[in-house]
């Protein structure tokens, strides 16, 4: 907890590309595509096409570096809590690629909208994520136009409200599917959100010409009393962040992820109260979780790690250093990390939908996925390291004094070091939290 409150040292050591860099590339790629399409089969057109390809390749390379940086941070951090929480909250505010450049921006999005707030206030994170261009694009907010807005009234084309962002903010990001909202709340909230859009420079903008005029009642409170603008949208988002249903939904999600698939009701209540009392500050909520006795009940089986967490934590346990990861030859990083993680069922930055990755263990512990986890454990450590740790020592560093006897036996009985290391990392004790 103390490292969470301290400055983010890992972010400095392994920087991640600024989102604005990708936005500029996006503008450039759109410009080049325009030239290419207008000049088919000419030198000008071909030059534009070559430039387009180069821009896309540059963006892809930046993304690869960013993915490496994420892995390097995870293995080097004194404790990996900030890295874990960044993964968790980035998943909470899942975005899936929508465009050619956008497919490379997941890390930058997380760096800008999520990571600065994982030890701060949820309300700030909500505002940053909901208004982030990647979210605006993913959940179609960029095409949601008030029917009675200046643009909606004047347009020849049929245009209107798109409920997608409004619905997912209520259902997934704040109140939860069981929260106390109605379809009317979704509709009115969508009307309130009109005006949030992307400008020609691919930056976030509030465009009053798209904004649905009038007052919009959401969860019993009326917004839109003043003139259209971001102020009232921010106010609504801030109110949602402070709603008791949001507090319980977030507490339940955190507890479900880090403690148990069937979290203790009392723990959730205490976490929610801590969050509300601290004006949506997250550290008190984490603390309430970790201080609750239910978090220290190891009698049940812990939650299974997601593939990305599994592979990163394995690299960490093996003692692989961030610098080693940054120095891997081209292609090797993908081969050892992201590509393998995808085969375990998690194609990074391509979650199945806005609700992000599955929590249920049964989703991840399938024969196919387990086969790929075992195969990572057996193959990759010896490819990534010259000298492997002794499997018996690895039991202590990776699992600790509570390691089951069967694991100690297996670590001893393995026929060689590669197999022993593989078995320790493939063990349920290591794959579960």
């Amino acid at each position, binding site marked *: 907890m103390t490292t969470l409150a301290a400055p983010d040292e890992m972010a400095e050591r392994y920087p991640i590309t600024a989102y604005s860099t990708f936005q500029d590339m996006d503008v450039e790629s759109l410009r080049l595509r325009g030239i290419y399409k207008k000049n088919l089969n000419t030198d000008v057109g071909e030059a534009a096409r070559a430039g387009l390809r180069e821009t896309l390749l540059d963006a892809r390379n930046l993304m690869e570096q960013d993915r490496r940086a994420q892995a390097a941070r995870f293995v080097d951090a004194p404790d990996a809590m900030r890295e874990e929480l960044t993964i968790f909250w980035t998943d909470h505010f899942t975005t899936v690629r929508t465009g050619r450049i956008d497919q490379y921006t997941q890390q930058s999005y997380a760096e800008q909208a999520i990571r600065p707030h994982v030890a701060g206030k949820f309300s700030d994170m909500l505002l940053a994520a909901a208004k982030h261009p990647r979210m605006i694009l993913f959940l*179609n907010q960029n*095409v*949601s*136009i008030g*029917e009675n807005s200046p643009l*909606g009234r004047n347009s020849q084309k*049929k*245009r*209107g*409200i*798109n*409920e*997608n962002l409004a*619905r997912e903010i209520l*259902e997934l990001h704040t109140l939860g*599917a069981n929260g106390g909202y*109605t*379809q009317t709340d979704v509709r009115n909230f969508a009307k309130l959100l009109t005006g949030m859009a992307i400008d020609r420079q691919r930056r976030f903008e509030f465009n009053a010409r798209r904004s649905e005029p009038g007052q919009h009642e959401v969860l019993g409170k009326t917004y839109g009393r003043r003139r259209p603008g971001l102020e009232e949208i921010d106010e609504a988002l801030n109110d949602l962040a402070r709603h008791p249903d949001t507090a319980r939904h977030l507490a339940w999600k955190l507890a479900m992820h880090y403690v148990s698939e069937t979290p203790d009701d009392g723990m959730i209540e205490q976490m929610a109260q801590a969050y509300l009392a601290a004006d949506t500050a997250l550290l008190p909520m984490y603390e309430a979780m970790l201080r609750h006795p239910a978090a220290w009940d190891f009698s049940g*089986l812990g939650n*299974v790690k997601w593939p990305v967490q599994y592979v990163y934590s394995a690299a960490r346990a093996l003692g692989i250093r961030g610098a080693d990861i940054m120095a891997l030859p081209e292609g090797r990083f993908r081969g050892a990390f992201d590509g393998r993680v995808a085969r375990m*069922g998690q*194609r990074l930055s*391509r979650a*199945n*939908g806005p*609700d992000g990755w*599955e929590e*249920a*263990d*049964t*989703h991840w*512990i*399938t*024969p*196919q*996925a*387990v*086969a790929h986890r*075992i*195969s990572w454990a*057996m193959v990759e450590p010896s490819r990534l390291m010259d000298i492997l740790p002794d499997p018996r020592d690895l039991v202590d560093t990776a699992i600790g004094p509570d390691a*089951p006897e*069967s*694991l100690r*036996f*297996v670590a001893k*009985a*393995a*026929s060689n070091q590669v*197999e022993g290391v*593989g*078995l320790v990392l*493939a*063990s*349920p004790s290591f*794959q*579960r939290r």
Partner: protein
Amino acid sequence: MDPKLDRRSFLRQSLSSGLLGCSAAASPLITPVTFANLPDGLAGENRLVVIILRGAMDGLDVVRPVGDPDFAGLRSTIDDGQERLPLDGFYDLHPALKPLMPLWQAGQLGFAHAVATPYRDKRSHFDGQDILESGVASVDGVESSGNGWLNRMLTLMPGARAETAFAVGRSQMMVLAGKAPYRTWVPNTSLDLTPHAERLLEVLYHDDPAFREAALSADAIIDALATDDPSDDVDTSSMMAEMGMEMGRGRSNRALIDTLDFTLNRLVGETRIAAFSINGWDTHGNQSNRMQNLLSQLSNAILTLKAGLGSAWNTTTVLAMTEFGRTVRENGTKGTDHGTGGAMLMAGGAVRGGRVYGDWPGLSEADLYERRDLLPTADVRSYAGYAMQGLYGVSSSDLERVVFPGLDLGVNPGIIL
């Protein structure tokens, strides 16, 4: 240590303990396929294939009520009006399903319109799919039901053999998950371990049921496939190439081709019930183009099954179901938002097709559900129930109590020949 650490005994244990049963809601790109084997003679030749269309298919776009005066103008950007495929005078079929018109004419393709599960109002894909697959009336009941309706139907069939069923897959089809034995399969499984390491893994996984089951099933499927007598299986790998099936490009299509290959492979053998998904029906924008692609996948899937099954097609029923319908009006982005009532597709030689079943509720503002959605006039579970009744003789009381607890089956219109 348990001295009997052999794989087969574990397999039996993990199967009899019925550990499976959880939801994998919206999973585009992942197309697991789920099978159930029935003992000889029980199911006879009747085959049931359930396709879950994840993402909420727009029933009003697929089966268009052009005979309803209020339909005109509702779908101006989605329907370009270029090609019409009249079905019965009241409904038109979406042009992308043109390849299925011969089936319609032969009475082997039908629909149920204005249908929905009991799920209302929140319009969440995830809850909607849970309810569709569990077959229970509310989200609260999903967990307690613990399994899907196809599986509960299997429990009514005496003598299903544990040793003929196992589960493999990246994600599950909840509709077939549950206590009754069944198998699952996903393309591209590989696991290569020395026997010594394998044995040590068994030690490690012994006390963790989830891992134990997953690893043993992975082994088991490799064994089973390796020892399969080739003469038992019809080679379908070149079947689609011969038929010139064009499935389009892309990862999800590749997965669908593999899924269909394997499904056919099993259905021509012992398997009688199969379930898989076609994903991506959440057409909030650009619906016209996306439906073209999605419906091509659906029609290719049906035609592939028909061609691959040969004469067995005559005793086959395919049901394609979705979690809910979409808004009656277009949204502002050339698409539709989450709605309520929708449509279900049925195909196969066993189906009494050539008609659209159901009572039409109308599309005037006052007729709509919450003034925005098609009003459901029938429970989509009833139609699944009629199919199971027609194919396997499941009694009405079993359907209303065990398979779909609390369902009022209503009058069976006889959708199975």
